[in-house]
C-alpha cells in the first residue's frame, strides 16, 4: 500500500488538511466533521436545522399506563433499545421531556391527570399513542369508564396500532415521528378534546346542580359527554 512507501513526514499537506487547520482537539473530531471536510460550514435555514436537532434527540417521558407499557419497557431495554434511534432517554419528570408515549387504556379517573402531565411538558411537545386503546378504547371500547381514545384528551401526532404493538412497531412509529419532526410537519387536530375547566364555568344542568354541594366552584373538573364520543 502507498502509505508503506511514503513516510508521513514527507507527505504533502492536502488542501483539506490545510483548510481544516489544527481545528478542535482530536477528541472532538467526528466522522461527521471529517465528512464535511474542506468546508466545515453548513448553510441551512435555522428552522430546518432546529427541526433536525429536535428529531434527532428526543427525551421521552417515563409514563406507563397499562399492558402496552410492558412492550414499551421492552422497546427501551436491551434487544430493541430505542436509544439507538436517538430517542431513548426516559425522563421521570414531564418538565424535562418532549415526547410522551401514551401506552394504554385511559379511564375517566385518569384522563384529567394525563392532561395535567401533558400540560406540564414544555413546548414543542409530541405525542405517540400506542395501542388500540389509545386509538378508540380498543377492546374496552364499550366500557362504562373508558375514554374512547387518547385524542379525546390530548392531541396526538402518531398512532401505533396493535394490541399491544410489537416493539418493532413502536420503534417504527417513533422513527416516523422523528422524520416528520425533521421535515417540520405537524398533525392537524381533528377531535375536540375534553377540557379541564373550573366547575363554576360548566353549563348548568341537572347533573351540575346535583354535584354543586360536592364540588367547589374553583375545582378543576372534566366533563364526559359519552353520547358525543365516536
Amino acid at each position, binding site marked *: 500500500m502507498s502509505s508503506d512507501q511514503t513516510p508521513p513526514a514527507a507527505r504533502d499537506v492536502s488542501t483539506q488538511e490545510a483548510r481544516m487547520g489544527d481545528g478542535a482537539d482530536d477528541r472532538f473530531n467526528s466522522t461527521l466533521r471529517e465528512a464535511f471536510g474542506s468546508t466545515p460550514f453548513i448553510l441551512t435555514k435555522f428552522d430546518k436545522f432546529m427541526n433536525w436537532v429536535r428529531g434527532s434527540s428526543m427525551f421521552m417521558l417515563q409514563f406507563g399506563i397499562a399492558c402496552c407499557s410492558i412492550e414499551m*419497557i421492552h422497546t427501551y431495554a436491551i434487544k430493541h433499545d430505542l436509544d439507538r434511534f436517538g430517542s431513548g432517554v426516559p425522563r421521570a419528570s414531564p418538565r424535562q421531556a418532549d415526547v410522551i408515549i401514551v401506552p394504554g387504556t385511559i379511564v375517566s379517573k385518569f384522563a*384529567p391527570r394525563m392532561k*395535567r402531565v401533558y400540560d406540564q411538558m414544555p413546548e414543542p411537545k409530541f405525542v405517540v399513542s400506542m395501542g388500540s386503546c389509545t386509538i378508540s378504547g380498543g377492546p374496552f371500547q364499550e366500557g362504562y369508564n*373508558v375514554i374512547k381514545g387518547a385524542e379525546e384528551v390530548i392531541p396526538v401526532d402518531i398512532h401505533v396500532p396493535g394490541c399491544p404493538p410489537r416493539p418493532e412497531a413502536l420503534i417504527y412509529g417513533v422513527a416516523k415521528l422523528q422524520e416528520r419532526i425533521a421535515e417540520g410537519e405537524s398533525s392537524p387536530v381533528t377531535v375536540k378534546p375534553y377540557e379541564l375547566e373550573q366547575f363554576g364555568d360548566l353549563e348548568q344542568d341537572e347533573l351540575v346542580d346535583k354535584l354543586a354541594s360536592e364540588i367547589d366552584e374553583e375545582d378543576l373538573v*372534566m*366533563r*364526559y359527554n*359519552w353520547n358525543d364520543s365516536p
Partner: protein
Amino acid sequence: MSLEKPSRDTALDVGVTEDGLDYDALADLLGGHILDREEHLNAEGFVIRPDEVQEVLSTLKEEAGFDHCACVTAQEYDDRYESIYHLRKYNDPTQELSIVVPSPKDNPHNESAARVYDTADWHEREAYDLVGIDYDDHPDLRRILLPETWQGHPLSQDYNQDQPQIVSLREHANPLEDDKRSEDDPDTMFVNIGPHHPATHGVLHVETVLDGEQIADLEPDIGYLHRCEEQMCQQGTYRHQIMPYPDRWDYISAGILNEWAYARAAEDLADIEVPEYAQVIRTMAAEMCRIASHELALATFALDVFGDFTAVFQYGIRDREIVQNLLEDLTGQRLMFNYLRLGGVAWDLPEPREEYFEKIRDFLDDLPHKLEEIHDLVTGNEIFQMRCVDTGVLSPEQVKQYGATGPVARGSGVDYDIRRDDPYGYYDELDWNVVTEQGGDNFSRVLVRLREVEESARIIEQCVDLLEQWPEDDREIQANVPRTLRPDPDKEIYRSVEGAKGELGIYIRSDGTDKPARFKIRSPCFSNLQTLPEMSQGEYIPDMIASLGSLDIVLGEVDR
C-alpha cells in the same frame, strides 16, 4: 413427598371428614342463623339474615377455622341484591363455604364483614361502588374504583351508560400550598405519590402523611385503570369472546395463568373434560408465564431500589425476552396470547417439535447460571440487603387477615399454593416444591420469586420430557365442546388458580344464555395491595417504595 402439607390444627376442624366437608355439621354449628341452603358447584351456600353477618362469620372464623375470606361477590337479581362471601381455609383451600346474604331491592344494605376480615373492607367498598349495596358498620364506605363524584352503580340493572359524568381533579392536594394535614399537627406533611410516578408500577396513587421522613399514615388510592373488565366479560359469550380479556388483567406476561383461571371456572361450570395432552401443554406454558412475570417483578424491583435503568433491570428483561420468544413460538403472540380454549388449547406445539424442545432445553440449561448472576448482583449485594432485610415486614396473621396470597403470603411463611392444595392441570403428577420463606420482609418476597423461577423451570423440564415421549396418535389438544355454550341456569361457581401474584379466582353465575349473568374476578393484587399500609407504618419513605415494589402489583389486575 414434597407436595404434602404439614399437619393441621385439629381443634378447628368442624365438619372435616375424609371425603370433603360435612356441611350438616357446619350447619349445626350455625344453628338458627341459617335461613336456607344452596348448592354452588364449588361449595354449599348458607343463606343468612343481612343483620347477622358479623356473628356468623366470626363463628365460622373462630370455631370452624375459615381464616381466608377469598372474595366478596355482589350482584343484583330481579327481586333482590345479594352479597356472597367466599370463605376457605389457608391450610386447605378445598374446604370452601359460601355465605349468601340477600338484601332488599329498594334499600339494599347488610352488615359489613370488615370487622371480622380486614380484607372485606376493600371488597365491600368495591361492591358498593359497582353494584350499590350499602354495608352497615363499615369503617369507611366510599367509592374505590370509580371517581367519588360518579353517578350510579354500573353493574346494577338500571344503570344508564350514556349519562354524562363529571370527574374532579381535587384529590391532588398541592403539597406546597398546604402541607399540613391539620392545624394541631403542624409537623406532618402530606405527599401525593402518583398516579404518574415511576415507582408506582403504573397508575397507582398513594396518599402519604409523613412525620419527618417516616410514614405516619398511608392510603392507596386505586381506580386509575378500572377498565370495566367484569362488564366486558358479562357481555361476551363463553366460548370465544371472553378468553382474550384475561390476558389483560395481569398483563405482565401472565396471560396463560389468567386464561387458565377462566378456563378452569368455565370448564367446571359446563362440565368439560380437558385432554391430558392439552393439560401438559397448558402447565408448561403457564410456568413459562410465571418465569416471565417473576423476571419482570425482579427487574422493576431493582429499578425501584437502585433507582435507574441499571444492569439488573436489563438482565431481567434479557431473560424475559427469551421466555417471550418461546411463548411466541407456541402461541403466535408476545404478550396477549389468547391461547387457551375451553376444553383445550388453540393449537399444538410448533413444528418441527424437536427444534422447539431444544430451544426450551437451551433456555433451561442456561437458567441456573443466569440466576446465579442475578443472586450475585442482587441478593448478595450489601446495599440491597440493607434496603430490604427487615423492612416492610408482614406477619402471617396480617397475611391471613388481608387475604394476601402468592409470593407475598409465602414470603411470610404462609404455606399456601393453589397448584398443590387444590390441584388442576398436570401439577399433581409432577415433582416440584412450594417455596416459602419465613422472614416476611421485602427480602423474603424477592427470594421467594427467585426460587419459584427455579421450581417453574423444574416443572417445564418435566413437561418437555412428557411431551417428547407422548405417542403421536394420542395428541389430542381439544375436547369436544359445542359451538355455543349454554350452561344450565342458576349454576354458580367460584374457582381459582395460582396466578403469578397469587390466588386468581373467578365467580360465574349462569342464567341459561350463552353469556354469564355475573362474572366476578378475585384478583390477588387487589388483596395484596391492602397490606401496604400495614407494612409501611412507621417505616421510612424509601422503604415504602421498596415494599410496594416487593408486593409486585399490576394495576390492570388491581383495578380490573
